[in-house]
């Protein structure tokens, strides 16, 4: 029985990871908007070349459903989920986005100290940017600083104001850190948080996959 739960958890993990990676992909397809009032609209430079901030692994993107577009069949719970920003683009200034891009290319090259340095620069500019904290947490995870990865993910959670996309990502980091530190009970607890978020996000996906 527990064996099956474990298998289920692993599958779910993969799915969650997949959804996570898809997030960044998807976001990059959306024409970015100037995020700062001070950024002049005539300057198309800001954010246009933003590479995906999620992982570059290609995964089938989930198709988002705009509220009310599909049909009356869409369950009303869909509207309960507030419109949380899904990527850093929505809440960050151009300087922070630029540093996030540097961090991302450093991460891709396996230069995690370099990436952390850029993220720390970004945090000095926007200390409450929970996306940046979240990326820093994941960077620590890749650096195998599991202790810091979990703490920083918790910190991101505490300022994320209930943003389920960020929370989900942070709980994934926490789960993996706990797994790496041989804390299966803690990892399972983190997984249960992910499951709850998954369920919250579920109705939005269901109508397009009616089989």
């Amino acid at each position, binding site marked *: 029985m527990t064996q099956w739960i474990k298998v289920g958890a692993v599958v779910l993990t993969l799915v969650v990871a997949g959804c996570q990676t898809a997030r960044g992909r998807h976001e990059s397809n959306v024409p970015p908007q100037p995020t700062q009032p*001070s950024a002049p609209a005539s300057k198309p430079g800001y954010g246009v070349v933003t590479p995906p901030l999620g992982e570059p692994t290609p995964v089938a993107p989930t198709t988002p459903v705009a509220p009310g577009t599909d049909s009356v069949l869409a369950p009303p719970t869909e509207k309960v989920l507030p419109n949380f920003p899904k990527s850093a683009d929505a809440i960050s200034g*151009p300087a922070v986005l*630029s540093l996030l891009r540097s961090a991302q290319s450093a991460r891709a090259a396996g230069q995690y100290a370099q990436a952390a340095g850029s993220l*720390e620069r970004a*945090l000095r500019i926007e200390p409450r940017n929970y996306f940046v904290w979240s990326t820093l947490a994941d960077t620590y995870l890749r650096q195998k600083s599991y202790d810091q990865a979990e*703490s920083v993910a918790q*910190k991101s959670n*505490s300022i994320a104001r209930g943003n389920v996309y960020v929370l989900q990502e942070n709980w994934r980091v926490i789960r993996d850190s706990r797994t790496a530190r041989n804390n299966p009970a803690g990892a399972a607890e983190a997984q249960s948080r992910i499951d709850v978020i998954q369920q919250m996000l579920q109705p939005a996906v269901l109508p397009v996959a009616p089989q």
Partner: protein
Amino acid sequence: MKAFFIKIRYVVVAALILLISAAVIGFSIYLTSLDKEIRARFAGARWALPAQVYAAPLELYPGQALDSATLKHELERLGYREQPEPQGPGTFAITKDQALIYTRAFNFWDGAQPESRLSVRLAPAGITEVNDAVSGKSRDIVRLDPMLIGSIYPQQGEDRVLVKLTDVPQMLPRGLVAVEDRSFYSHYGVSIKGIMRAAFANLMAGHAVEGASTITQQLVKNFFLTPERSLKRKFKEVCMALLLEAHYSKDEIMEAYLNEVHLGQDGNRAVHGFGLGAQFYFNKPLSELHPHEFALLVGLVKGPSYYNPRRNPERAKARRDLVLQIFNDEGLIDDAEYKSAVELPLGLAGKSDGVARYPAFVDLVKRQLKGQYQDNDLTNEGLRIFTTLDPRAQEALEKQITEGLPVLEGQRKMKAGALQGAGVITSVDGGEVLALVGGRETRYAGFNRALDSRRSIGSLAKPFVYLTALQQPQQFNLTTILPDDPISLTMPNKDVWEPHNYDRQNHGPQPLYMALAQSYNLPTVALGLRVGATEVRKTMQLAGYSGNVLPVPSIFLGSLDAAPVEVAQMYATLAASGYQSPLSAIREVETKEGQPLSRFPIKVKQTLPEGPVYLATWAMRQVMTLGTGRSAYNVISPSTIVAGKTGTTDEMRDAWFAGFSADRVAVIWVGRDDFRPMGLSGATGALPIWSKVMRDIGVRGLDPLPPADVEEQLTDTATGLKADAGCTGAMLVPYIRGYAPTETAPCASILAPVNSAVDWLKGMLQ
């Protein structure tokens, strides 16, 4: 007879030959040993290189709150020169709404940033655009080169900033040759002509008035020899000069000379080489010096103390102008340049603009490195240390402490200089130490009160008593009513402890938050006794207190010692919602070649629960609006929400204020080194300085958004019960979710049923 003489002659000649041979052999051995010495010295690292300490770089990006005047000030502090048209790195032009900046190249720890020409658009609120002035392309973020704030040199030691000959403007070596050693490029280390000239001059004068040292000889003297004057030493000098020339090129000798020469003294720090000389006298890199500045440095070689431009400006100017004359004769500058150059003042940077500006902060840097690096590594290896110092924050802290103390002395009719002060500013998220002042003489390394003055913290301890209680939501909340009654405690040693309120009055029962806001002692002790001293001490330790105090009730009122930096650590944990980041003054350390050695990444650990910390800081916000800290809002804009706590110790020996905004923590201490009472409380002594510092550094106000496990409820503060619109003076108070008072206050009772009916209806409709 004749034969006898011939025999004698042979003997003499043989003896002479033997003697000469012996001398030649002896001399050869001597030369070989000298040669060995020279090679040994020149082959490896020629100098012990002090570590160089840098401030945090200024970042330019759209949205940065930096107006024209502030940016100009920042650039000038970095030694950038204002020009009508920026020409070359380290220059700028600025108006109210635009700045053109020609930035310097700099090797940052994460990569080199080339020099660039920037066009920065400015509005009163800050930077709106940063563009490359050449291509017109927008730049998202650009770092300016960081300020060199000090170096870690050995006691009684030589300090220098190494330069390469290829990076040095030609005017300097050519000027030096013209002034010091005209035949440098043609002689073999010594100049016969020079010696003859000097000998003649000395003969005429009857004593030694002129040296005949070539640049090579001067280098040898500085490098290998003691300053004693003797024929023997002179002989050695000549031999070594010849040997040096035989082994090394003129360029190598010139480069060594540029880095070796002594150019001044700063306390026990010896300023060596032109690289440091340029920083020390002009606060900019050698490559940016103008002819009159080069001339001053070249002139100093003859006698850095005799021609000390700070002490003997007129003498130094005469010497400089003479050197400029030689520059002109040699064709290094034309007549027009010469004429304008001699008109210029010396153009010295203030001594405080030199390299040892922030001794207290560099002290902290050294201590943080202590465990990781040997003293020798720091003083010899030329490490580059990138710190967290924010020069703007540092300037504000220094200014408010040095200007604030004389004002306080005036108010209290104290002798000038009687008071001392210390202060710390840190960031909230990440725990970076941005500024540190260890005493009112900010330029002198002395007793560093910010780190070493452990004094009683008084009421700064109270938030930790309240926070301990608020972690038990089933027992305590912000509106729990506390008694304000006399307390008498018999201690284990039979002493009786009878604390009093500061004003020696009793104020009647107080809601918990109000007792903290007004800093009442008796309710605090009553609360502390209910939660226990051990628990309170534990909360303090979780916040970052590292001292070893007994868990006795007097700690509720702060009878424990801590240095300002430790208080900053404790309050930073509160400011960061319970997530502690160990305070750090360093970001990165790299080798002199630019290889990263160690990074000090942001560390975060949740040590205190978020909800209760939010409640405690909510009460600390009330300190500022209706309690002992309210005069802060005479200085800080009332729209900027801050939280803090006053601290006053027995008989007013210490005045503290510690508090924070969303992004900054600041701690101020004012007191006397002799521990005598000074008649100042936390509110009258430390708070005025704190408020001005927070205003000057432009803090961001706290965001009054409660965390997920906190709910807010309208409460009647007189009873601590649930209130509604019918209650006058009701307050929206945060509670740990699920623990808000459910019982309705008398003032709300009439409307209560109606309200619950409305609630019920709402519930039905949802």
